[in-house]
């Protein structure tokens, strides 16, 4: 574990030593230690089954087709909670977007695509995809295992065949999931699909009707991969194109529940990141970029999003976000920025700071996604690319600390809006590639 002066890692692992705290501090520290949940707490149970073994068996028996990660996807290996190997494809990626990100905080996906452009990563962003539907499901109970499984299989089948529109072979693009809830939900659903012949039978009828089978079989991806995992394995390559020094920044990480608490055995843990004690994504990237990652007692807490709560139990969401996350990050960790890797968390933690103030909770901190932070550190335009004007939290402070003249950047963006108004907006890729079939599709465009 990195023993950075002034950070609060001490006491979290085998290097524990008596901190000789005052009674008041001891109370705070006890709560902190109670909140400590490291890798041991998660692996102390019986070793769980690796469902990917079942996937390989079913593939061998000719029951399913597996969308394989091939050499052309340039996979990089990572280790999961139990030390299992997970291969993360780094090239030829199909962006599976997040409705909350695209609708609310669009700088989230644009920063990711911008980073890919800088690194020369080939990708496809297209219109033939639906939301995973899991936000609605977790919020309302409308939906069921079968519907979730069908949505998963339909979207991933489209990823598999999408390159046809460019005259390229099936399986060329591998899906990269943007949303943490989609990621958790798809993995849960994949496990049930692999375990239950009955479920496979049921969904096969639906997929057959949609024309979404491969050789009459269900198509299962070799891995379900979250964009934060791509960032994690690309972190040294991102560092290589970094242009802004972030060494003075104190950053706290909010790990997303659906990324590492849901199907925890698949989350990436890395011995180089916090001694392998906590989920590695985001923290690894932020450390690689040179910022100081600061610990805080409520790191394990959720953000308060709650799925239904963000819509109709706002007091819960606001109180939880402010009291358990924002205030702690500010008052305990003295952080300059909070960085996350999931849609609902970024929205909740960011947007609730406005009403937080009105409700007498005076704490504010810039909230951004890991890819937005990385893109800014690599010189992305704060408004044109990182789209920070959609954030309610004081992102301007972060920009100032990074030495970015945000007022100038804002003025640039405002004049750029004139160009957009006149139809001269810029895009990250050729817009003709976005529609691969159905209404609006045009002739194949090469990748």
């Amino acid at each position, binding site marked *: 574990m990195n023993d950075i002066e002034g950070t609060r890692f001490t006491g979290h692992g085998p290097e524990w030593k008596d901190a000789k705290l005052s009674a008041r501090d001891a109370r705070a520290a006890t709560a902190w230690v109670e909140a400590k949940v490291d890798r041991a707490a998660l692996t102390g149970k019986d070793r*769980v089954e690796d469902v990917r073994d079942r996937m390989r068996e079913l593939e061998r028996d000719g029951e399913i087709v597996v969308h394989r990660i091939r050499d052309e996807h340039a996979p990089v290996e990572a280790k999961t909670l139990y030390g299992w190997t997970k291969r993360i494809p780094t090239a030829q990626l199909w962006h599976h977007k997040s409705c909350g990100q695209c*609708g609310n905080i669009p700088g989230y996906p644009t920063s990711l695509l911008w980073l890919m452009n800088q690194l020369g990563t080939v990708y496809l962003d297209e219109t033939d*995809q639906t939301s995973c539907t899991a936000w609605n499901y977790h919020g309302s109970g409308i939906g069921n295992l079968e519907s979730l499984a069908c949505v998963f299989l339909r979207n991933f089948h489209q990823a598999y065949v999408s390159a046809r529109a460019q005259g390229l072979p099936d399986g060329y693009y591998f899906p990269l999931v943007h949303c943490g809830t989609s990621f958790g939900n798809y993995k849960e659903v994949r496990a049930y699909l692999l375990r239950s012949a009955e479920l496979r039978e049921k969904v096969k009828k639906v997929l057959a009707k949609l024309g979404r089978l491969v050789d009459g079989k269900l198509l299962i991806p070799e891995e379900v991969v979250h964009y934060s995992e791509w960032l994690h394995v690309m972190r040294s390559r991102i560092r290589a194109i970094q242009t802004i020094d972030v060494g003075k920044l104190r950053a706290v990480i909010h790990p997303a529940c659906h990324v590492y608490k849901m199907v925890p055995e698949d989350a990436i843990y890395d011995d180089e990141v916090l001694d392998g004690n906590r989920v590695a994504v985001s923290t690894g990237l932020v450390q690689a970029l040179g910022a100081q990652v600061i610990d805080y007692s409520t790191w*394990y807490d959720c953000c308060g999003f709650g799925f239904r709560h963000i819509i109709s139990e706002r007091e819960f969401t606001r109180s939880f976000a402010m009291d358990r996350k924002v205030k702690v990050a500010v008052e305990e960790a003295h952080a300059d920025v909070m960085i996350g890797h999931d849609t609902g968390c970024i929205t909740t933690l960011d947007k609730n700071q406005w*009403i937080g103030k009105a409700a007498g909770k005076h704490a504010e901190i810039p909230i951004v996604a890991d890819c937005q932070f990385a893109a800014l550190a690599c010189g992305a335009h704060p408004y044109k690319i990182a789209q920070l004007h*959609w954030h309610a939290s004081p992102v301007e402070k972060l920009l100032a600390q990074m030495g970015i003249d945000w007022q100038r950047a804002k003025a640039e963006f405002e004049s750029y809006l004139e160009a957009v108004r006149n139809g001269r*907006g810029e895009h990250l890729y050729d817009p003709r590639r976005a529609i691969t*079939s159905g*209404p609006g599709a045009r002739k194949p465009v090469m990748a």
Partner: protein
Amino acid sequence: MHATASRKQQHIGDPLSPQPVLDRARLEAIFNDIQADARYDHELNGCLNCGICTATCPAAQYYDFSPREIVQLLWTENLEGIYDAMQEKIWACAQCYTCAARCPFRNSPGSLIMIMREVAIKHGLQSAKDVLRPFSRVMLKLISTGNQLSPDMITADHFADWGPNISKIDAPLKLLRQAIPMPTLNTMQTAWEVNLKTSIELYTIWEMTGVLKQLEIIDENLFDVITDIMDEKREDYEDWRESQDGNE
């Protein structure tokens, strides 16, 4: 544990209360539906009553709610308690799965709660209808388009507590959306442009997996609105297909 197991309580209701006991057949039907879910046995493996789940449950800090209690009710097959919890408590859960990550028995109280929510809808509990009313905008958007959220849903009217400005740059929403450098995101009514063909495929999923039936139980008006939209979009798609045939 199987649906035929019977440790169900013989006496439902308080024997000293003048209130009539709940209809046992209804309670059993509800419980049987919960137990019959394919996930049930996987998500409930016993319970130590240790309370670890409740200790780190965010909802338990703010509501009269405890995942330990929910799991105990299911594990002891307390039919009346289950029915009771389904009125309000199951809707307190924030679906974070902290409980699932920590439970020494590898139970997932969060997933069990999802099964209970689905069953509450299947049985048309009034409490489920009430609780879901404010969620109807999300359901309308999702079921009719395939997107759960859209820029035109996020207005200061609907999210007053997010402040008066959705964007810190004062410009029309449409222009700001056009200024997003991903062509799929230059939209207002969906978070990204969803191909009509894609929405139509999703309608088949909704129909074949019983989601529309759930919707009809919970909100008949919303069901009518959504099926009308679906019919229209299917017609549009058929028109497009015919126009393609003509071109060939």
